[in-house]
């Protein structure tokens, strides 16, 4: 597989390919005949870079722009990126009236204007806010010719309905493979309608505007060559993408040799192959399985203790693997809390531990994942959701280590499949069962049994 991959990589110039798509997107956005342009961006394909670049080009073209993101963190991040790229460009950050509505880091920045009133920011080349805040702006009070809607697949159709009156045209950017938006109450009554308010903004947009140009960023710059094929095949079966780097471009090494323990062996396996499965013996456990939690914490501790260094296309010299380059992903908040506590006991402080929902859009060198189905007596729709596993398995630049109890394959096989079917609803692929099996069987090749 490696030799075939290398041969293909030689014929495929990721940089040129990505640039070609980006040019087409910008062309369609700036001079295209359509009111909307949709861009699918797989994990780490340069979505943020695209958004920043599109924003700057539109600003340069003198087209006032509003940017819609989904969370305050995403908005702040975009503001910072824009400011970093073009410190002289006036950027408006529209925020809510809550006490800490935005990152305090924005306060001191020249040319970044903060306000909770859209009118106060009117006329600026770029104004950025969350969908929720934009929803409170009246179309009669403010209007933009152009918008960029970021994370559009995580935005609900009804949220788009509240903001779409503010702009004439828009560039919609997002990752279709991540977690779908959801509703806490039943919305079956509208299932199959083109404007089902609980569906994603993109599905409504495309149902009503089937002719819109759709692009796909073809290259993941984050995922290493060891991960892109698996993530692409398992989660993006109809829209494959490639890694921007080759197998030799990234290397993870450790100064301290393995002590032969399970955690060290799985770290070495992951450093070598990009993936590692630390398998604990089969046992049914509650979500905060103490052994699994301790195993996760131990792996993190060892990652930091063994003097890791990452070599990549970004730097000529090895970069130390520090706490801020490592993250832990879980399915549930209480699991994240338990891992944090276990890490604290081991004296680890600065490693991010969060749920899949909150890790969306983030990037690390190494991730340690507590498998959503580990130790569970039953698989539920929540745990089988492809987007959850996709987020967890696609945050890393070098390696991903999964901690899991044995027996998940049997659990999947015994899972009943009696889902209801709504007429007119497009079937979403892949289904969780297949995606989970695909990932599991790949991980099985990098399995290390737990041994303290």
């Amino acid at each position: 597989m490696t030799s075939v991959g290398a041969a293909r990589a030689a014929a495929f110039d990721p940089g040129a390919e990505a640039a070609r798509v980006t040019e087409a997107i910008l062309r369609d956005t700036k001079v295209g005949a359509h009111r909307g342009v949709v861009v699918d961006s797989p994990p780490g394909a340069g979505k943020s870079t695209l958004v920043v670049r599109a924003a700057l080009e539109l600003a340069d073209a003198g087209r006032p722009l509003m940017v819609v993101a989904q969370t305050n963190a995403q908005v702040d991040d975009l503001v910072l990126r824009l400011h970093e790229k073009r410190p002289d460009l006036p950027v408006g950050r529209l925020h809510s009236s809550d006490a800490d509505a935005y990152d305090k880091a924005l306060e001191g920045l020249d040319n970044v204007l903060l306000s909770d009133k859209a009118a106060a920011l009117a006329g600026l080349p770029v104004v950025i806010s969350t969908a929720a805040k934009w929803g409170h702006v009246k179309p009669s009070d403010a209007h933009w010719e152009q918008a960029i809607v970021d994370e559009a697949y995580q935005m609900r159709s009804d949220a788009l309905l509240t903001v779409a009156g503010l702009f004439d045209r828009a560039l919609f950017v997002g990752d279709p493979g991540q977690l779908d938006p959801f509703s806490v109450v039943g919305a079956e009554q509208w299932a199959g309608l083109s404007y089902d308010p609980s569906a994603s903004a993109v599905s409504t947009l495309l149902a009503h505007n089937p002719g819109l140009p759709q692009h796909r960023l073809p290259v993941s710059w984050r995922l290493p060559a060891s991960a892109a094929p698996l993530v692409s095949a398992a989660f993006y079966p109809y829209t494959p993408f490639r890694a921007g780097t080759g197998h030799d471009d990234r290397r993870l090494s450790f100064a301290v040799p393995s002590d032969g323990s399970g955690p060290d062996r799985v770290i070495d396996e992951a450093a070598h192959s990009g993936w590692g499965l630390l398998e604990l013996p089969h046992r049914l456990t509650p979500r905060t399985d103490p052994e699994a939690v301790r195993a996760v914490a131990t792996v993190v501790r060892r990652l930091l203790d063994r003097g890791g260094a990452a070599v990549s296309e970004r730097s000529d010299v090895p970069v130390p693997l520090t706490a801020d380059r490592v993250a832990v992903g879980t399915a549930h908040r209480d699991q994240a809390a338990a891992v944090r506590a276990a890490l604290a006991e081991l004296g680890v402080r600065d490693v991010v531990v969060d749920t899949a929902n909150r890790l969306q859009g983030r990037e690390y060198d190494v991730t340690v994942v507590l498998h959503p189905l580990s130790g569970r007596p039953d698989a539920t729709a929540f745990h089988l959701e492809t987007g959850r596993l996709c987020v967890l398995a696609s945050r890393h630049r070098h390696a991903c280590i999964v901690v899991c109890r044995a027996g998940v394959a049997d659990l999947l096989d015994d899972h009943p499949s009696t889902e209801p079917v709504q007429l007119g609803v497009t079937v979403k692929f892949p289904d969780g069962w297949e995606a989970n099996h695909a990932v599991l069987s790949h991980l099985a090749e990098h399995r290390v049994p737990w041994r303290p």
Partner: protein
Amino acid sequence: MSLITTLARLEAIRAGRAQPAATVRHRHLAERPLVVVPLTTAGEAGAPLGALVGCDRDAPRLLVVPQPRDRDLRSAFLAELADVVLPYVESFADDVELVEGKEADPETGRQVKVERELCADAPQLIVPSRAGVEFLRLLGRSTRFRRTADQDPETAYPAPPRVPLLGRWLTHFGERARVPGSSLLLAMTDLLSRHWATGQSSLEDQHLGALLAWIDPPVEEGLTGAEAALRAELGRDPEGQLLCPPAGPATDPAFDNRLLAPAIERYDRARSALAAAEDGVAADALLAHLSEAEREIGELVRSRTLPTWENVWRGLDLLRALPEASRVPDRWTGDRWSFTAHRDRVASGEPPQPRIDDAVTAAQKLARREREQAKLDAQEALDDPLVLAARRLTGEAFVGEVVEVAMTYTETKRPSPRPLVTVRTEDRPHLGEKAKVFRSLEGKPQTARFVAAEEEDGGAGGAGEVSAEGPLLVVLRIVDRMGRGKEPALGSVPEKGDRLCFTLFEHEPRGGPKLPDPENTPWTHGGPPSDPAPLPAADPVTEEDLL
């Protein structure tokens, strides 16, 4: 299923009877609800077979369709149903109170004060099960577009005068039933399983007879809940009929095949004989046969609905024995507004509800239901320690004693109080950095910010989560509802020794962004809907139509 519910159900298994899932009643119960026990014909969409309806437990009205495939008989049934439901509904329309509110002035767009009518009380429909709610919704859909001879003299099969109006009301009840916490139309199985945890699954709880068997087992017969539930599910008389007929609207196939089908056949024969009668004398005798056949079907329908009717009222008795939760009237006011608004739409001659919501209406309904769900979850927890217990267990609330209060102030020109309150709790709240928490102060939420937490015996501190078991000291900063002065208003700051409950969820969820008017539906959602016809077209009527 939450762990605390699982535990309650397991306790029910051990005890042989249902255990409380609530300590107070979380739904409004009308003094005089209208109970509807409908039956439908198998295999047909919304072809009613009959119903028991009424507000008087001892005098239900029996409605029967002796031949469910006969259009005229079905129309007669619907007309009768309208005769029961509409007077009941309309009896609430006239008693109103005036409520002051604000409204945008159509001329100036400014908010002006207006007085609005609010019906003092509202009707309440109770059906045995969720399938009953679904069936009323279906009846609403099938009748609201019908045309009466008045509306359309040309129509081939005119509906009885009040039937389309019945359809509009049933549709309204059906839609309102989808709003969490609403009480205009309720299913008894939902009501009971909200308040009791049985020793069976929630799937099995949808059998009204079995559910009641767990909640109120016939101890006098020496049966446990499980045994009585089994009898309710499967017990049959020597003729093979279920002792406890299904709560409907679907009937038991054994009833259909062995009793109902032969009776309908006899009815059909009697009718054909009557139609073929050659003279008045013969007709008289044949008419008697027909009436007898009709009466027989009526008795069959009564025999299948009466046990359920009794069960619904028994359920009401059980629920009435629970004290009403304190925030129930607040939610019932929402139901009253909903009723009043529909009353006004009917009175102003608006057309029936469309078949399919437009984009804006759908989004509005979803937003409202999400808000009502959040409100319901919060209110039930605030009203009921048993519901709160589940939220405490999941780390979404905590209860504890105030052990220290230290005054601090904002460093602003006019300093405001920001007291630091330390609460000792045995709960394990999931408090993130600067998390907001709320407590109920004179019925209104007071906000505090999480500052720090540590184990009482000196464990880890700071923001974040603590895993060990012992008591926890949580430091909070109170940030609002202390009045305008430098010193907090009397009673607005917790005192040492107070036992308080803080929640991580909001008590009064905020409304979301305003949606555009339908005529301003944006291009992303298909643009404005095409001009709606003043009256949506009736369903096409064909020879073989069922309704």
